[in-house]
């Protein structure tokens, strides 16, 4: 919690409420900020209830229900962003960003560069990724790495209520398109959040647990599984350092490399597919920039390269858990 400035009171709130507070505070602070998305308004208040109460507070003009038209949601947000507004678009499930991919990858990401910096695209795209709730292949993917591959996009992956609020406020105040990845299983999780105003800069990793023997770089829900694994291994006297990058673009290489220098061992855990995924990029970065500090091969914990299956035992099998993290740690320690 090192980024919290001041001595203000903390209270425990959910990840969902932390995101809502960030939206509410920024909409109050800046009247160019507005929300658009499917079922985010007063009738439904968001598929995950993140926008609860916001339409009542700010009206239907600033909390806009849209048709089921993802391409138009993002395209419209892009058009508004380049003409003086600060849209925050919600895509109900991360899987559905695929329907808006041209607007995200070819338009939002490239306008600033392609037009020679004439325009900025201050656009936040909020969307939940991740599995674990038995809704199968069209509503459970983790596509964060797709967006890491598009220069011009920023990618945030908050794992706690505190990080979610602070990063979202920074994202809204920023000047670039950002994919703000949320995780369905994190919405009800609770954590301490200051009562006072605060932001968290992008590109600053957070060491969620200190340790001397091995570094786990983990993202989103995997951070919590990594912390559980660290607690279990602590009983055996092993010190596991859990590093949460918090944003994948920009990536805080220094904090990751410093941790690897200290521990000499690296496991990377993320919920997306292994091939060309989040873990692949971080492994490649460490191999390229810090291989001399490693005392053992880098190991990755990720999903196998399959769609997310429906049936509970099948889904459980593909989504990595604490047991797999510990097994992987034991391979190199």
């Amino acid at each position, binding site marked *: 919690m090192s980024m919290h400035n001041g001595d203000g009171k903390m209270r425990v709130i959910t990840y969902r409420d932390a995101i809502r507070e960030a939206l509410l505070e920024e909409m109050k602070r800046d009247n*160019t900020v*507005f929300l658009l998305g499917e079922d985010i308004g007063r009738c439904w208040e968001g598929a995950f209830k993140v926008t609860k109460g916001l339409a009542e507070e700010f009206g239907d*003009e*600033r909390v*806009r229900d*849209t*048709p089921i*038209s993802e*391409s*138009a949601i*993002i*395209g*419209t*947000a*892009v*058009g*508004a*962003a*380049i*003409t*003086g*507004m600060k*849209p925050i678009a919600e895509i109900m499930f991360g899987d559905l960003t695929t329907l808006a991919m*041209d*607007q995200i990858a*070819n*338009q939002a990401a490239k*306008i*600033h*560069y*392609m*037009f*020679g*910096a*004439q*325009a*900025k*695209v*201050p656009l936040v795209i909020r969307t939940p990724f991740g599995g674990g709730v038995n809704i199968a292949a069209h509503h459970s993917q983790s596509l964060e790495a797709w967006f890491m591959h598009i*220069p*011009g996009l*920023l990618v945030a992956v908050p794992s706690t209520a505190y990080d979610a609020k602070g990063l979202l406020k920074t994202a809204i105040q920023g*000047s*670039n398109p950002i994919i703000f990845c949320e995780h369905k299983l994190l919405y009800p999780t609770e954590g301490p959040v200051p009562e006072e105003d605060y932001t968290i800069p992008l590109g600053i990793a957070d060491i969620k647990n200190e340790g001397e023997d091995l570094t786990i770089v983990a993202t989103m829900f995997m951070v919590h599984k990594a912390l559980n694994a660290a607690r279990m291994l602590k009983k055996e006297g092993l010190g596991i350092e859990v590093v949460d990058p918090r944003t994948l673009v920009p990536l805080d290489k220094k904090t990751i490399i410093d941790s690897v220098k200290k521990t000499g061992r690296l496991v990377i855990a993320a919920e997306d597919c292994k091939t060309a995924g989040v873990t692949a990029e971080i492994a490649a970065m460490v191999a390229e920039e810090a291989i001399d500090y490693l005392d053992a091969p880098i190991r990755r914990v990720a999903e196998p390269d399959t769609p997310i299956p429906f049936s509970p035992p099948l889904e459980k099998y593909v989504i990595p858990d604490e047991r797999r993290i510990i097994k992987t740690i034991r391979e190199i320690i």
Partner: protein
Amino acid sequence: MEKGKIIELYRKMLEIRLFEEKVFELYGQNIVPGTIHLYIGEEAIAAGVCSNLRKDDYIVSTHRGHGHCIAKGARLDMTMAEILGKKTGYCRGKGGSMHIADFSVGMLGATAVVGAGIPIATGAGLSIKLRGTDQVVACFFGDGAANQGTFHEGINLAAVWKLPVVFICENNLYAMGTCQSQVMLIKDIAERATAYGIPGVSVNGNDAIAVYETAEKAIKHARHGNGPSLIECKTYRHKGHSRFDPATYRPKEEVEEWLKKDPIQNLKRQLLEKGYLLNAGMAQIEREVNDIIEKAAQFAIDSPYPPPEEALENVYA
């Protein structure tokens, strides 16, 4: 339409025509990198629509966008420099022919993805509504774009939210080499407006005055808060789709017929008939336009390329 306005319209169309001919000439000299999509034959549309717009109004353009830039008031020299990939171009050489923008005159950019500009125009319209100004957006796209999902999504949303956007479909009958009848059963794309509950009208896109007057109505309609319209302008590109495409997929008789309907010759005839301009006046305008285009081309040719390392700049704001 008053005399002065028609002469202005003619001059603008001639600017676009001679500019494009210059681009074609430079392309033949291997000075223009990549590809080009010329607007020759369609000048009446950009000029007719944009003559109704204020400087603070917006347009959204396409891969065939040089004419839109010029009609909205972008500088010819910076447009040409961008087409040549020079540092002095509108996008400092990062965009090129298919991605020119001039935000200082409300030209929000050309997108080379067919149909992608439609929801962006809707978004600019939403921005106008939320900011409470009386600006208007004109969104240009072709017949090919009318078959994209973004056409449906973007126009429907603009209609539902009653946004000040005028959608201008430049129907030149061919999406690359695919003719309209191969990919839609209707003849008039304007009919699709009915599906969104907005006005839709087809107009002779080679008749500058008809385009001007049709756009005038739709723009007033939008500016007064009455929502979007769809205008289909029937037209024809004189050249192929891109570069040296000989366009052999188009029947010879069809091409000849359309060449007779040249929008510039069309307006020139009307000006002479009405006695608004004499041959001497015409020649004078042509000389002036030729002169600024030569200067623009020379500026572009003389300009330096951007230093290579600028490729790494401006990925993020």
